[in-house]
């Protein structure tokens, strides 16, 4: 009995110790919060709420849009950004034929080895090759971009919260900082080599506006290439590169859920029937 009592006594003392330590930290924190000034967050904006063909549980790819987005990546983004997890063969999923993919790959130069000399060389791509990086290595990428390495875009829309909307908003969002913003946050003025964008968390990024003029890309399907159109198309394309299986995933989900719904209803009915004998009658 005395032994048990002592266990609880020790527990009470230990508990009080932790509680006092936590409350002491609270008091110190409250004092600091009241006396010290906290640097306010820079007011960046949440991405625009745009609508996409692949939104929601029934969403599907818009193949024409993905093909347009590929063209924007090809002619604009690929100058600096790699797409290393995407192979040319994957492009058949965008509605291209095998022959078109072969021709597309062959037009790209990828690193290879000269079969006669064994020296490093460039060769035309094959469908099994992956999108080549614009730079031979990270040091070259940093050197060419003021030390800011352009990130790989394969997973970009999954690597940012609300990624598809974020990419599209960022591409459309370049603008001069407003006078009110600079008045309130003088530190928000873009430094040398930086560009203001309200959708970027610290408001200034090293990427120069990539999409600047309407008609920068000439679409094959005759769609008018506005800045908004190009930004959205490439964001949709990058959503596909980030998760090419997204639509298949949603389409697989429905039969699974419908099957489970029926199975669960049957399980409920058998449970009710089995328990009927021992449940008290109301």
């Amino acid at each position, binding site marked *: 009995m005395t032994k*048990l009592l002592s*266990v*609880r006594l020790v*527990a*009470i003392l*230990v*508990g*009080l110790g*932790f*509680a*006092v*330590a*936590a*409350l*002491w*930290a*609270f008091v*110190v*924190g*409250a004092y600091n*919060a009241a006396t010290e000034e*906290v640097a306010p967050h820079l007011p960046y904006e949440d991405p625009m709420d745009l609508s996409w063909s692949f939104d929601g*549980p029934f969403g599907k790819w818009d193949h024409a849009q993905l093909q347009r987005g590929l063209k924007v990546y090809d002619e604009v983004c690929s100058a600096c950004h790699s797409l290393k*997890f995407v192979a040319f063969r*994957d492009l058949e999923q965008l509605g291209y034929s095998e022959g078109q993919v072969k021709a597309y790959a062959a037009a790209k130069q990828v690193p290879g080895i000269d079969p006669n000399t064994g020296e490093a060389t460039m060769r035309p791509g094959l469908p099994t090759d992956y999108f080549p990086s614009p730079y031979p290595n990270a040091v070259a990428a940093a050197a060419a971009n003021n030390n800011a390495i352009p*990130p*790989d875009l*394969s*997973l970009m829309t*999954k*690597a*940012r*919260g609300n*990624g598809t909307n974020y990419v599209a908003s960022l591409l459309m969002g370049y603008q001069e900082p407003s006078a009110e913003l600079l008045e309130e946050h003088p530190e928000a003025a873009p430094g040398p080599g930086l560009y203001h964008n309200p959708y970027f*968390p610290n408001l200034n990024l090293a990427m120069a506006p990539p999409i600047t003029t309407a008609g920068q890309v000439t679409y094959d399907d005759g769609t008018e290439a506005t800045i908004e159109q190009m930004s959205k198309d490439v964001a949709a394309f990058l959503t596909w590169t*980030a*998760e*090419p*299986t997204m639509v298949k*995933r*949603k389409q*697989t*989900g429905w039969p*699974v*859920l419908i099957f*489970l*719904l029926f*199975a*669960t209803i049957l*399980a*409920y009915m*058998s*449970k009710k029937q*089995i*328990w009927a*004998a*021992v449940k*008290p009658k109301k």
Partner: protein
Amino acid sequence: MSFPWARQYEPKNAVTKFLDEKLPLPRLVYNAVGAGYPVPRNLSYFWNFGVLAGFFLVVQIVTGVVLAMHYAANAQVAFATTEHIMRDVNWGWLMRYAHANGASFFFIVVYLHIFRGLFYSSYKAPREMIWLLGVVIFLLMMATAFMGYVLPWGQMSFWGAKVITGLFGAIPLVGEPIQVWLLGGFAPDNAALNRFFSLHFLLPFVIAGVVILHIWALHIPGSSNPTGVEVKSESDTVPFHPYYTAKDGFGLGIALLAYFALVFFLPNALGHPDNYIEANPLSTPAHIVPEWYFWPFYAILRAFTVDFLFVPAKLMGVIAMFASILLWFFLPWLDKSPVRSGHYRPLFRKFFWFGLIPAMIVLFICGGAPAEEPYVMLSQIATAYYFLHFLVILPIISNVEKPEPLPYSITEAVLGSDKKVVKGENTTPAV
């Protein structure tokens, strides 16, 4: 080990008779989860989560073994092989999403299982050993989940590994050598990734072993029940099969609906976007946060922001975080109230619903939030309450509380009176 009225296994044909003589596995199953295990007749749906936890352990082992066939634990290629699974392996995306969300569901059902144990004091005699083994399982789960999250070698994998192994660095004198020894280097790299993979593969089977002990220990006193009154007679129980197999089947259906809704339609909702960025030791993420199921304990870790007496703040946080779980080992000896169920304990119930549950919610929110005010201050108050609740309030209220009257038996609680039972009127379940 079971009630005298438990049904006896009778092998019916030549094969089962042969088996029963040589290796009585069917008998074991019959007595464990078959008609040979009498269970209180009044269990609520809160008693479903043990079976569900076992189910999700199996899901994790099956999907995990398949993933391990395609994954390479090497810092150079780990991120790329994870993407290879997502893109090129047939149904690889399904395996990976099922595994990542399976971990979340394993924790959801285990937290509900622990909640049940805390409200109904399932840890009290004669079930102390079941509870102790359960805490061991939970600790093993935490270690396994932490190491699993490192394997994709994304930004949160890397920085999570760095922060968590850094906790050991807070130990005075030997801290840093221990941290280097754990990681196999000065920072997380190939050595750490390899050993985490090895242990992540091993520990689930250790968990499965402790689960067997947990169930074994359960079958000695039998299941607890919502009244907390022990089984008195045959009319208090029903055979596990078909009554609870049917009820668990329905519960499993509901759990699977929720699980697959997440897997197929919101597979990344519980993850962090930063883990789709490849690990980069030179770029620290803005906010390093663990997976959601660690948030309450992460909040306790970060609540200790100032040195206390001679203990540095960081060490204090580490001790408190480990203590917050280890103290569960002592619950059977801290809460001495003879009444088990929270339904009959007015004072306990108030502290539970208006103290512990809000504190846990606050800790959960603060653990996922950046280390800023007001989150830090809120987590400090909630942390103080957490320790007071288990170590001070629980031992004291078991002395001062006046419990409400208990029903005479489970049968009385279900039927209103136990007399009919004695006469044997429509109470012996027909199987």
